């Protein structure tokens, strides 16, 4: 079996861009990452059937020159599913933006709780004033500026 270099490189590009975007802070980029990753996966499924451009219908070519039609049928189903779920995700992202007023994925609540506990423990150790905070454990943004977060923390505590 020969490997189609163009398709392999395209797939590698789609997957790496998708995963890179998935690890971003902005929700919109995460969603774009999902979309691109979805394209990559669906394309991969099609490539699994044979080289692109060959006919699939019985009788349109000799058997050896045809590609396997089953992966194309599978890819069609998978495309519909990813399309539907992307739409749902966009609606959810809009809802999240409407509720929270920003589209950044925040730190894990628990991580922050642990960081704060450690910070408090150090403060007791040093008996320093309020201003001497340990910079490493400070969340990148002041938690007070985020609506809704404090409630969440209070609930979890």
């Amino acid at each position, binding site marked *: 079996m020969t490997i189609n270099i163009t398709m392999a490189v395209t797939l590698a590009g789609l997957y790496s861009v998708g995963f890179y975007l998935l690890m971003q802070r902005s929700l919109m980029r995460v969603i774009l990452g999902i979309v691109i*990753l979805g394209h990559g*996966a*669906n394309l991969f499924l099609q*490539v699994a059937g044979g080289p692109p451009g060959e006919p699939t219908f019985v009788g349109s070519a000799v058997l050896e020159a045809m590609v396997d039609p089953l992966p194309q049928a599978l890819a069609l189903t998978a495309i519909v*599913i990813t399309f539907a*779920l992307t739409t749902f995700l966009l609606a959810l*992202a809009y809802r999240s933006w409407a509720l929270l007023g920003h589209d950044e994925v925040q730190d894990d609540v628990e991580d922050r709780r642990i960081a704060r506990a450690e910070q408090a423990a150090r403060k007791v150790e040093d008996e320093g004033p309020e201003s001497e905070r340990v910079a490493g454990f400070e969340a990148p943004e002041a938690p007070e500026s985020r*609506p809704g977060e404090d409630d969440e923390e209070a*609930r979890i*505590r």
Partner: protein
Amino acid sequence: MTFLVALPVLLPLLAAALSLVAGRSPRVQRLLGVVVLTAIAAVAATLLLRADSEGPVVLRLGGYGPPFGITLVADRLASLLLLVSALVTLAVLVFSIGQRITDFGRRTASTAFHPMYLVLCAGVSMAYLTGDLFNLFVAFEIMLGASYVLITRRVTAERVRPSMTYVIVSLTSSLLFITMIALVYTATGTVNLAAMPEKIAALPAGVQSSLALFIVIVFGIKAALVPLHFWLPDSYPTAPAPITAVFAALLTKVGVYALIRTQTLVFVHEDSWAVLLGVALVTMIIGALGAIAQNDLNRMLSFLLVSHIGYMLFGLALFTVIGLAGVILYVVHHITVQGALFLVSGLVTRHTGTVSLQAMSGVARAYPLVAVLFAIPAMSLAGIPPFSGFVAKMALLQAGAEVGTAMAIAVTAGAVVTSLLTLYAVTKIWVGAFWGPPTEPLVDDDPNDDVTVGTGSTSSAMVGATGGLVLISVLIAVFAGPLADMSERAANDLLHDEGYRSAVLGEGNG
């Protein structure tokens, strides 16, 4: 007879459509849900009896033969899990109807809940019954799609972030699933699970094990294996109690089922699999330690859920008949017990108005029945005799000791330690929530959202549904003998899968 196999998928889907149409009349919706789920339970019981006496029941949809057509297969394992899942979904539905009536009265309809719940049930049934890999993907998507709607329904500001995490992680794992199907198809040229083993066996060993590992990762995200578990304790506890209960009871178990099915049927493992044993050990210990560190009742239960997924993985990784029989027993036990615990947590939250173990106390004195309903599944989870957890754990420990390699012994020891840690965790819940003087319920800070807490009111339907689940878990312990025999036969089918394959691929009864 074979048409019966299609019913657990078709009935809830059709009922979901009807339920959507009947959105304005809550009584029709409720009746439809209860009737359909009862029917699925009956069908599953019939299928189980038939599969046990005559071998797998196979249905070829549209009359297309394998390996191209779609097949639905009900063997012992699939129909047993189908039966338990149907009973649990029924109990949770009754609980949720009871909660709805208590909170909003008999007249108000919840348009989206019933149809989506039925779609979820259809997805779960299809995942159990399907005979090919792509159909399994579709089943997962049906199930997860419905779960996205259920977890984000009437989402509030503090619930939107965790549910977003859930949706994105699940979507990513679905995309990896598509990738996995593409890889498997490229390597084997089929998506039919029964036709796959021959093709896989012809591949080089390296390709085989990388495919097997990729499948473990894909289903590991769904089943919440450590280190792929991080999303679960974040997202599950935020949903309303009945939703969390059904997610915790079923969704992760479907992932475990898919792992069992693919690793036993498609791949051949002669010995125990050390990598999977290691993952099992880490999952058990980290989950249990995570649970102990929590102060939130629901988060604690979620970590315990993660921890006990490790047990199922442990039995699977041994690849012996006794080990797999232990897993089947454990999955059956865990579906009922975990569902029951989350429902009890829902009851407790309604009485106390909080999920924080520090803020609540004295539930046992104020509501003794709730305390009993918690104590039985909790002790069962920790594996105290004579409850169902003990029977299942015992089977797993025996299987581990029997294999006897250093790794297997280490994981067996880890399983005992985890059992003790679980006991410590549930004791912590008991001391925090149930002992002490009763507290006044805290007032619900947002009475209009779906999570109603602190009203102090529960209806007999809610308590009854929880009691029903607890009763099932007690019955599992009472009928442990026949059930263990059945699990052993099912495990035997899994490891000696000629029966399954010839039933699917041969002319059979199609």
